[in-house]
């Protein structure tokens, strides 16, 4: 295995980077439906197909529910499939999210995240993704166009290895529509990384099987437990895939990324590009001002990388979890906060953890606000959820 020699770097939005990844992967069937801020992904894919650069069937479905249903049908038939959505579209798909996971179909879907109605907002936050987080899908949250591109390719490998659907999410607008440099892989190399494997069961008249049967109480639970096991397996395989990808293509990310955590007393735990990027800048600022600050980014969100997150936070005195979604009426309104709190409780760890809700409906996330979180952690470490930047 050799790291690619000649570099091919393009200026792309994260949405366009998704389309380039889909092209490299040689996807067979793609369901296309517009919703802001996802639309430019399927526009670019449509352009690739129109130009003969991508040999795929596009299905111009009439709703997101049908988008996911169509790729379920295609994946069940043995095709490599892709679709993408955001916000209300992901909500409309919700029923089929569970089914795709229950049927163990290796679907890959891009989700540039966006706030939910009402009132309607086309802007970014992670409310849509967080509503889909426990549906049995593997979920990655990328922080750059490059990472999103690399993650889609990794996602196909993971999906086909553990027979689970995978979402690749990232910030709506703040990433989906931002032009950045993206190093594109040699497509032949990508196809070597993703060989066509014969799946055990597909819809084929030569080997007829029944998919989606009725399971009685004597049978249903075991299939749900299979999904539990598959997600545990995915935690391991995601790391292996990322390492192998790194060896082949020169870029890997781990399941959790850390910044200046070696000697950090205070950490911000975040996901997504804007929260993470601005927390990094804030950590630099904090260190200039004498606070030993660091950042932990959760890249693989489902299965939750408990061991890696706990390890990253092992030596901090206090930390904050910044969430761009609200779980209404929950004991802690931040979804990631709750995950980490549960993980720590289960491992007998007790330290001050501040929950910070921010960036809701793309309320601007400032580096200065992130810096303030570090000062809060130093001055008054506590367990509490705060709503940063809201007028009260």
């Amino acid at each position, binding site marked *: 295995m050799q790291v690619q020699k000649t570099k091919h770097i393009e200026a792309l939005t994260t949405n366009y980077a998704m389309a380039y990844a889909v092209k490299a992967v040689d996807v067979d069937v793609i369901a296309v439906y517009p919703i802001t801020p996802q639309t430019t992904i399927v526009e670019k894919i449509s352009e690739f197909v129109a130009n003969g650069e991508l040999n795929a069937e596009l299905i111009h479905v009439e709703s997101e529910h049908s988008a996911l249903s169509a790729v379920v049908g295609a994946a069940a038939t043995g095709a490599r499939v892709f679709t993408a959505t955001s916000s209300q579209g992901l909500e409309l798909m919700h029923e089929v999210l569970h089914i795709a996971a229950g049927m163990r179909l290796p679907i890959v879907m891009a989700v540039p995240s966006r706030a939910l109605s009402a009132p309607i907002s086309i802007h970014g936050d992670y409310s849509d993704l967080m509503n889909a987080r426990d549906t049995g899908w593997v979920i990655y949250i990328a922080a750059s166009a490059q990472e999103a591109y690399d993650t889609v390719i990794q996602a196909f490998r993971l999906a086909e290895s553990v027979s689970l659907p995978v979402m690749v999410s990232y910030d709506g607008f703040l990433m989906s*529509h931002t*032009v950045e*440099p993206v190093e594109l892989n040699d497509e032949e190399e990508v196809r070597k990384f993703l060989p066509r494997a014969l799946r055990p069961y597909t819809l084929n008249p030569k080997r007829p099987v029944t998919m989606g049967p009725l399971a009685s109480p004597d049978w249903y639970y075991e299939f749900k437990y299979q999904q539990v096991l598959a997600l545990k397996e995915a935690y391991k395989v995601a790391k292996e895939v990322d390492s192998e990808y790194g060896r082949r293509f020169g870029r890997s990310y781990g399941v959790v990324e850390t910044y200046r955590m070696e000697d950090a007393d205070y950490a911000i735990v975040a996901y997504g590009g804007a929260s993470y990027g*601005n927390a*990094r*800048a804030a950590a630099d600022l904090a260190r200039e001002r004498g606070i030993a600050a660091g950042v932990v980014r959760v890249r693989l969100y489902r299965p939750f990388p408990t061991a890696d997150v706990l390890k990253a936070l092992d030596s901090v005195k206090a930390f904050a979890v910044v969430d761009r979604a609200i779980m209404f009426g929950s004991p802690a309104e931040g979804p990631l906060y709750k995950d980490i709190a549960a993980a720590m409780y289960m491992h007998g760890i007790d330290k001050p953890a501040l929950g910070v809700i921010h960036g809701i409906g793309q309320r601007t996330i400032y580096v200065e606000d992130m810096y303030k979180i570090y000062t809060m952690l130093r001055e008054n470490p506590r367990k509490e959820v705060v709503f940063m930047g809201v007028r009260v």
Partner: protein
Amino acid sequence: MPMIEIRFHGRGGQGMVTAAQVLAAAAIIEGKYAQAFPEFGPERRGAPVKSYLRISDKPIYTREPILRPDVIVVADQSLFRAENPLEGSKVSTILVVNGAYKAPLKTYYVDATSLSMKILGRPVVNTAMIGAVVRATDLVTLRSVAEALKKFFTGRLYDLNIKLVETAYQETVEL
């Protein structure tokens, strides 16, 4: 090179989002890191819009809007009445503006509207403003801009836009 932050002010339809993207692509062609993003909204043609561009030798992580721009680009002087494009400017900030405008900053201007009308036959000023930004900042070469423009225009429209960038570059004046 430290990170350079540029903020573009225009109206929907004038192409300021594209201008930031073209310059980002040109920088990326030169092996630099860049980040170009619009101020997002459902705004349609005519509404004031901002777009942002960061260029650096190192990877760029921050994704906050540009609050303290090194360069401010104003595609339409009526924007000075609609909002305050100079907000957050530093002593060192450079202003690049369509038509002469007196500001308390180092200012470059070009008559982008007339040039666009003359060369394109339409008042779409984004490529003219790109030429002016290159002249004012030397951030990227005209050659990289020409290369980057291939992703945005083809055929005769590409030729005309290259001509417009070059003409604007030459006709940009420091006030």
